[in-house]
Structures are given as C-alpha cells and as structure tokens.
C-alpha cells in the first residue's frame, strides 16, 4: 500500500476549488433555477484578464482584482440582459443558454490569447509549509479557507438575511414571489453578480494552482457540477463535502498504476452514482409559474 497522505493533501486543495465552484452553482440554481455551465469560462476570463493586466505591469494583487472585476461584470451583464429574458423558460433552456455563454467566452479567449504557454503565479505560491512530506503553498491554504468561509457565509446569508429569504422565496415560486412584492429581477441580478465574484476568484486560484489555459479552466465546471449534484443542487454543505471528496479521490488514485490514467473519471462516476441512487424528485426545485 503506497503512502497516500501526500495525495490527500494535494487533493484537498483541488477539492476545495471544486467545492467553491459547486457552491457557486448551487447558490445560483437555488435563486434563479439556472445551472450555470459558464462558471468555468467566467473564471477563465478572470484568470486571463489578471494575467494580461499583470503582463502590462499592474501589480499582481491589483491584477487579480481586475480579473475578478471582469468576471463579475460578465456575470452581472448576463444576469441583467440574458437571464431576465429566459426566466420563464424551462430549466433546460436556461442551462443551455449559459452553455452558449461558456462557448462564446471560450472562443473569444482563444481568439485573444491563443495557445501560448503562460502562467499565473501568485505571491502566495512562495509561502509554504511542509505537511506529510508535501509542501503546502499559500494558494492551497487560501483555497481551503475560502471554501469553508464561503459555505458559512452563504448559509448565513440564506438563513438570516432578507435577501436570503427573498432568494429562497424565488426558488420556491418566481411568480408568487413577484406577487408578494419581491423585486425578482433585482434578486436575480444579485445572485448573478455574487456568482461572478465567486467564479472570478475560483479562476484566479485555479489558474495559479492548475493551469492558465482558457479551455482547461472552462471545463473545470464539470467536476464542480458533480459536486453540486452531490449536494442535490440544494445543500451547500453536501456540495462542500462532495467537492472535497472528488478532489481527494482523484488525487489518491494517483499512486495506483492500474487506475491512475483514468482518475479524471472520478467526478463523472460520482455524478452518475448520485443520479442513479437518489430519487429523481430530489432535483425538482424552482417552479416556473
């Protein structure tokens, strides 16, 4: 039996990013009924913008903020101009609309940045501590911390604030919410804006942790969807656990020669298992009208 602890440590960092993205999907789905396939692409836009700003001489911290700002603008723009127009369509159509955004962004990014090798290195990468024979960089610690803080923060928002109440009301019935005086479009826009901030942050983290490449970052949405499905598109804490579990499982398969080449299948296997084992009605949430 190989020593798995180093892989556990590396898997946790990747898992926290999956979990963060998964929570971003859950929050938006709960508020608007939209499954955001473009989360990865918006994150990629953030990472590429940050790289570009840094390449033009902006200090890295400010460049990262530029990236998050760009992601937030894209996400809020979609929330304001597209999301409202597809609000009354079925969830499938809403999801496909976000897929359109993802592919458009991906094409645009390849057009602008091509396939030149490049990297995004945060100063946090230089800070590190040794744990079970693995160097844990600052980026990994921040990813995990951010992941737990986001789960706590969003849970409090949904449970304790007026906005959270409105979001939950929207998820239960869009038209009823409008009837009782909730500004539906405002809540939708806020949800999209918040998702943009989250996606932008994830893009920067993943661009630094994994690879600064538009395609790779765009498709990181896939394991995140698996995490969100584990949370039944509803539970933040199950999504958090799901994301971490997928990241760790994927990493600890590494030293096993026979399965290692196939370990990126982990999110799919997890997602299929959850879909097969859980009753179908688990996933019904928003009632359109």
């Amino acid at each position, binding site marked *: 039996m*190989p*020593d798995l602890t*180093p*892989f556990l440590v*590396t*898997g946790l*960092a*990747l898992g926290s990013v999956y979990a963060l993205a998964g929570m971003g999907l859950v929050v938006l789905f709960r508020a608007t009924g939209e499954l955001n396939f473009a989360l990865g692409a918006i994150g990629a836009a953030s990472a590429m913008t940050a790289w570009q700003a840094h390449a033009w001489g902006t200090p890295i911290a400010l460049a990262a903020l530029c990236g998050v700002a760009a992601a937030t603008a894209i996400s809020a723009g979609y929330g304001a101009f597209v999301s409202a127009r597809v609000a009354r369509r079925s969830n499938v159509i809403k999801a496909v609309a976000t897929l359109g955004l993802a592919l458009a962004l991906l094409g645009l990014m390849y057009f602008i940045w*091509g*396939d*030149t*090798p*490049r*990297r995004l*290195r945060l100063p946090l*990468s230089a800070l*590190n501590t040794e744990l079970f024979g*693995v*160097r844990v*960089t600052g980026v990994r610690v921040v990813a995990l911390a951010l992941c737990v803080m986001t789960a706590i923060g969003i849970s409090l928002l949904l449970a304790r604030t007026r906005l959270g109440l409105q979001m939950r009301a929207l998820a239960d019935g869009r038209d009823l919410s409008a009837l009782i005086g909730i500004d539906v479009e405002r809540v939708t826009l806020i949800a999209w804006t918040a998702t943009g901030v989250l996606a932008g942050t994830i893009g920067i983290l*993943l661009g630094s942790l*994994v*690879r*600064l*490449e538009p*395609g*790779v970052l765009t*498709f*990181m949405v896939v*394991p995140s969807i698996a995490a969100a499905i584990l949370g039944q598109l509803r539970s933040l804490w199950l999504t958090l656990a799901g994301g971490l579990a997928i990241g760790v499982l*994927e*990493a600890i398969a*590494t*030293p096993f020669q026979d399965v*290692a*080449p*196939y*370990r*990126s299948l982990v999110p799919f296997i997890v997602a299929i298992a959850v879909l097969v084992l859980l009753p179908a009605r688990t996933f019904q949430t928003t009632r359109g009208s």
Partner: protein
Amino acid sequence: MKHALPLTLAALACGFSLAMTPPAAANEACGSGEPATGEPIKIGAIVGQTGPADFSSASKSAAAFFDCVNANGGINGRPVEYLVEDDAWNPETAANAAAKLVNDEGVVAMAGSTSFIECGTNARFYADNGIGVIAGVGVPRECFFSSNIAPMNMGPRLSTLGAAIDAYENQGARSFVCMAPNIPNVGGWFCEGLAAWGADKGVETHNVLHDPATLDPTSLVLQAMAMGADAIIVAEPAPAAIPIFNAAEDQDLREEAIWLGPTSIYDTAFPAAVGDYWAGAIKAHIEFNTLDSDGVDNTAWLSIMDEYGNASDPRDSFSQGGYLAAKIITGVLRGIDGDITRQSVLEALQTMEAVDSDLLCGAWSFGPGDRHNANQAGRMVTMTADGWETSRDCFVSDDPELADIRS
C-alpha cells in the same frame, strides 16, 4: 503557435538576419530565374489549425517558400499552387480535406502537413491513391508507420529518447520517468521507445501516463518523484508542461531529479513562462537545429519568412519543418523529366538522393520502404533565464524499433 513574445523575437531575428545577409540569400534557396507562369503544379497540405492547438505553422513556412519559388523560376518555369486545408483536429474533416485535395483539386503530392489526427485517418487513402506526403512535423505513431508519409522531423518518440540518452551519457542517469498524455499511439508510444532502449541498456524506466485534461499536476509530480528515478522526462506539449514544472517548483524539486523534455518544450515563450527558478535546470532535445543557428538553411528560412511570409507567422521548429518539406519537394519536382503526375512524383520521392541541411543532423531522403523515419538524430539545448543554448551537437536516438529502417 502564436506568441506575442516569440513574434517579437522572431521579428528581431529576422530584422537581424536581413541586415546581415544580402537579399539574394532568400532567393538562392528557392531557385533562380523569371517569375513562373503557365499551368500551376498543385501541392496540398492538411494541418490542424483550429482546435486544441494551432498546428498550421509548417504550412505557413511552406507557403512562403513556394511563393519564393514562384518568384524565382518556379518548377522549370511553372508555378506551384499550394492548397492548405484545416482538419480542425477532426478525423472526418481530415478525410474530407484529403478527398478534396486529391480527388477534386488533383494535387500531385502533399508537403508541410502537420496534424495530430491526419496521418491515422488518411494514410490508407494516400497509399491507395499513390500520393506522396512529406509531413512538416509528424507527432503520432501513424505518421511514421505509413508507406506514403515521410515526416521531416524525428518524432516525439525519438526526441523523448534523445533526452534520456543525453542524461544517461552525460549526467549519469540510470533510471527514468516518462510523463506523457495518455492518448493512443501518442504518449504510450513515446514512452515505450524509452522502455525498449532502457531494456537494452539495463536502465530502469517508469511511465506516468495521464489524461491530458487532468487538473492535478501536483499529484503527477508526486507520483513521478515516488518512483525514485534519477531523471524525469516531461513529454508534453509546452502549455501542458508548464503546470508540471510549476507544481515541481512549488514542491522545490529542481535538485531532486534531472528535468528533461522533448522538442515540444523548445518554445521561445517557455523560459519566461516557467520562470527563473528553472534556468539552467531544464534540458530539451531538439529535432531541428536551433531557431537562431547561422547555417545556410536556417538563415534562408528566416529571410524567406521575412520576405514572403507574414509578420505574424510563427518562427518555430514546426516552421523549420515546413520550410524543409517545401524545399525538398521543390528539388524533387525540378528533377522530374517529363510529366509531373502523382505517379511520377511518388516515384521520384522514393528514389530521391538524400539531402543534407544544417537544420538536420544527417541526410534526409523519403525512401522506398513501408514506413519512414529518416531523421533520427538531434541536438540538446539547455534553458537559460531568457532563452535556450545548445548544450550538445548532433547525436542519434538509438531506438530498437528503428532496426527495420536502419537495416
């Protein structure tokens, strides 16, 4: 591939070479005489331009070369019409493109093709139709195992092995890890070459084959390190190699192994992208001469690109391969007495005399066999903070699988 930095460097290099060499140097490589007129001779190429990476560089240098040929006498007075198709990394598109070029356009040969999937898709079609293909750069196994396709380059398998041979002979490495994407006839095939050579030498070899879309380079690096090898060969395209070197930097593993790569990491944008940490610590095997070498062909390639290519065309090793493919097919076409047809071209290719070039280490010929891998020797370069410098001149990659070609 398109890079802002290499373009700037290439533009500088071109300006430099133009300043140092008289304009005639470009023309000498492509002929002499009046601009060509009359019925064009059609040559085709299929490249993977749109898709995961842009593999059109070789066709761009070939196009520049043919433009130069046409301005300087053509093929005994006739111009070359160079037709390039994009296969979009899609086998069906590649098959359609080959049918269009061969059946509809009536090309007499192909030159400068570079694709991840085209060789496997169209090898049979070329054989059935008697079309000879000089690929600018061949990557997967099928490009080297077809009767009608002869790539200009050594191929990633020999390049990966070359990196290992250098570390074995000069740095005392006796165990290796081969890290490569798990794509059929690509990554596994590269690493098997190392294993076959290692078995002969009594050298220990291990593989880390992984999904090319993996999001977890740190685990790959830890897996490779756990194998306890002296040297790690990162046999990946440059954009995929960067995160692996980043992860190794995070773990501070520079001194824990000898770090190597094949030609794919020999990219002018690479040193800046992996950062100063790796200066002097990464060695790459290269299949053609260095991009700034001062031999006749390299100088001519750069000046032809400057005179006939676009400023935005890459000046990379793929481009060198395309230049050579175009130059060789031009020489073969000019030597044909009588009609230029696909049959006469294929026959001329199969019986051509070997051609020397400063871009290559040995003479190159198409050859009559069932498969072709004429380029078997390369050089080593070491990465510096802002570029690459040659650390070893020509040596052969002694792959046991080449026994049939050598005999």
